[in-house]
């Protein structure tokens, strides 16, 4: 009994710590304001400002899109950069040290296309529909729920389906790692320049030349739609490239 306890001391302590944390947090939750309380301190003047002035300031009907791509755009820029840095780190890790430039022209000998009639037939219908839906979500990011991140993930899933049905080699004809690197760099530089411009004009009280348009129209909200497209491209390519890098598997 004593030796069992000594051997499992770490696990017993871990379970004890977890239970303690949950208990402390539950006691804290019991003192929090009630769920859905309009007077709760989280609903303070910051969110009221976004909701009241969001349409006039950003031109976006979707306040969340206006918030993350206009008021707090540099936060989103950092987020997108984190995605890119994560992919760069994964590539650096997965790369074979003996073949330093193998990533640009990888061999997909193990990745044959699946000869599956059901998958092939249904994907003929599904891939265009998923792509159209992804583009719709990206382009209407300032008008309806969605935006660059969710639409990009939908596009990325269509690309993954394509790579599964027709083989990675077929897909890497139009989206190789080189294309990915260029697309993402261009998108990130465009994002940085566009937001740098709007922050420069805002800080110096210069009138921005980008019109906000009529709220509710597709071509409105100034920079938000181009930024959504940039973020969407980055996310779509990143999701797909991460999948490809992991599905390549062990080539030894």
């Amino acid at each position, binding site marked *: 009994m004593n030796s069992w306890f000594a051997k499992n001391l770490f696990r017993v302590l*871990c*379970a004890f*710590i*977890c*239970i303690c*944390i*949950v208990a402390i*947090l*539950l*006691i804290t*939750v*019991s*003192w*929090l*304001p*009630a*769920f*859905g*309380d*309009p007077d*709760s301190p*989280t*609903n303070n003047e*910051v*969110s*009221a400002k*976004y*909701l*009241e002035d*969001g*349409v006039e300031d950003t031109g976006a*009907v*979707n*306040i*969340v899109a206006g*918030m*993350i791509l206009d008021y*707090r755009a540099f*936060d*989103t820029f950092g*987020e997108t950069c*984190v*995605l890119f*840095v*994560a*992919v760069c*780190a*994964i590539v650096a*890790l*997965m790369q074979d040290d003996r073949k330093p430039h193998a990533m640009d022209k990888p061999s997909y000998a193990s990745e044959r296309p699946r000869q599956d009639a059901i998958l092939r037939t249904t994907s003929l219908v599904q891939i265009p529909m998923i792509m159209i839906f992804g583009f719709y979500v990206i382009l209407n990011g300032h*008008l309806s*729920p969605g935006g660059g*991140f969710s639409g990009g993930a939908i596009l990325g899933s269509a690309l993954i389906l394509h790579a599964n049905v027709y083989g990675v080699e077929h897909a890497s004809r139009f989206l190789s790692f080189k294309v990915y690197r260029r697309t993402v760099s261009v998108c990130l530089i465009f994002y940085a320049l566009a937001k740098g411009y709007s922050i420069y004009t805002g800080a110096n009280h210069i009138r921005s030349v980008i019109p906000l348009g009529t*709220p509710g129209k597709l071509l409105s909200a100034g920079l938000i739609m181009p930024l959504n497209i940039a973020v969407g491209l980055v*996310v779509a390519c990143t999701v797909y490239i*991460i999948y490809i*890098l*992991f599905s390549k598997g*062990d080539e*030894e």
Partner: protein
Amino acid sequence: MGGNLLSNYHEVVSIILFGIGFAALLLSRNLVKKFIGLNIADTAVYLFLASKGYVLGRAAPIVSVGGHNAADYINPIPTGLILTGIVISVSVTAFAFALIVKLYNRYKTLDLDEIIALSLLEKP
């Protein structure tokens, strides 16, 4: 104990999920299961933030064009924070799995204790 434990059942569920994820992170020896636990804990935090931003009877912050009342919509800030959190958690998970693949290729095991034991045996 305060009096809001039962009315805050969304937060209670998120705390319990966080505890489950944290326990999996600490107790599981398998590296993949550790990161599944980390993702459960992440999701619990999103549930907590979303339930803190919700206001009973109000609509999602897609405002109607033309005059709108700020008191008709929920708090948009937690939604934006959750969006940030999801992206960061995806990046961290992908990077962690790349590291796990490298560790597996070297030691042919996913058990953290075995990996530490094997790495101690290696000559520096």
